[in-house]
């Protein structure tokens, strides 16, 4: 463990931890998105999937705990790195013109926490079912459809997903670079990979509230 703390003490170490946790979060999202898309298969299939998850019992809690830990590490590292970097330039420029960086890369520190807040909201909304009279922990399908029938709520979801897309647009490329996965011949491929993953996750998630609003999912 000693070597790890030593590694984590360096900026490169923290950055690698960001990348690993970020990549795990992406994996979770891919799975979660695929699960959610089953909403298009109808109430039975979707509820079946939800039940299967719940049937994991203690396993589910293990996964939840794992996810939470990962998120906390990701967040804490990002905070430490943010602090290092903001200390690194005590006097800022009167004028600074961006060149190669993207809007997405420059807003990572905003999109990250917003997504985390969203997740909290989202858990309260669909897992716990706070303040929703119709909430039925055994009919996840109806919870989803009813929830998203509210355009305001769907709007919040869609906007949050767009921010997520921003975070991932930089993140999915960035984690490869941070882990040193880089080769001149594959670098374009790396960008394409990021684009595809990001687009897939974004579209996959948005498809749910959109489907409800559009009446494809009832």
């Amino acid at each position, binding site marked *: 463990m000693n*070597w*790890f703390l*030593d*590694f984590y*003490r*360096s*900026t*490169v*170490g*923290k*950055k*690698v931890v960001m990348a690993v946790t970020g990549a795990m979060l992406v994996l979770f999202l891919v799975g979660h998105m695929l699960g959610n898309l089953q909403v298009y298969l109808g109430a039975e299939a979707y509820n079946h999937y939800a039940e299967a998850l719940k049937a994991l019992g203690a396993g589910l809690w293990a996964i939840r705990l794992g996810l939470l830990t990962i998120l906390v590490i990701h967040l804490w590292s990002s905070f430490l*790195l943010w602090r*290092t*970097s*903001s*200390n*690194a*330039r*005590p*006097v*800022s*420029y*009167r*004028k*600074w*013109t*961006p*060149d*190669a*960086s993207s809007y997405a*890369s*420059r807003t*990572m520190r905003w999109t990250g926490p917003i997504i985390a807040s969203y997740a909290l909201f989202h858990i309260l909304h669909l897992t716990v079912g706070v303040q929703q009279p119709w909430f039925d922990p055994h009919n996840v399908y109806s919870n989803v459809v009813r929830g998203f029938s509210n355009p305001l709520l769907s709007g919040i979801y869609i906007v949050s997903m767009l921010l997520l897309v921003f975070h991932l647009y*930089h993140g999915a*490329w*960035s984690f490869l*670079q*941070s*882990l*040193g*996965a*880089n*080769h*001149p011949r594959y*670098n374009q491929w790396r960008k394409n990979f990021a684009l595809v993953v990001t687009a897939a996750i974004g579209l996959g998630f948005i498809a749910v509230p959109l489907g409800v609003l559009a009446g494809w999912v009832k």
Partner: protein
Amino acid sequence: MNLTLYVWRQKDANDKGRMVQLQASGISEHMSFLEMLDVVNEDLLKKGDEPIAFDHDCREGICGMCGMMVNGKAHGPQDGTCLCQLHMRTFKDGDVLYLEPWRARAFPVIRDLVVDRSAFDRIIQAGGFISVNSGSAQDANAIPIPKENADLAMDAAACIGCGACVAQCPNASAALFVSAKISQLALLPQGQSERHIRVRKMIEQMDREGFGNCTNHGECEAVCPKEISLNNIARMNRDQIVAKVTKAS
């Protein structure tokens, strides 16, 4: 042509400093950027004012001494070009230029546009070398080096240590500079024995100097006058992972 300059003036490290408006008149488009500043300075001298301090030496884009932010871009608007190699034809009559020093905690301002970059030297001193004493080397052709690696090492070795990467990076990170040296030596057979100690020590020193951390913005590569590639940063990360995860100390 005539230009309006807003120049950072700061008498010494303790002075707070401020932007000062100056006029540059009668500038020829064939002048280099530094020659334009020479002209402005001669004007200031004639008026009894103190000239703007800025670092420079070779004026041919190789020593790495020059550099400042020109309208928020390190070394000015032209890609792959040092400030001393930038010519005034890049600008047009009436332009307004903001000139600021490199800004980073690790690069304190000495005066006006001059900063102290000795942090870079200390990083190299921490490990940016191959430990071979004079006279103890074997024949130069004893180890063939694949041309591809030699060329990549040369690409990385072209860094002139100007500090533009740090200046432009939103995090004030020195990743590009440090990784360029690490890469050069990691790509050559001579550099292998110390490869992992080197990366560890150099990164330690980089952090100690108070540079920020890299979040892969890519600004550094874009302004680097020698077009040092981001691939080097990835290589540095990789080596640091290997160094930490697989090596005993």
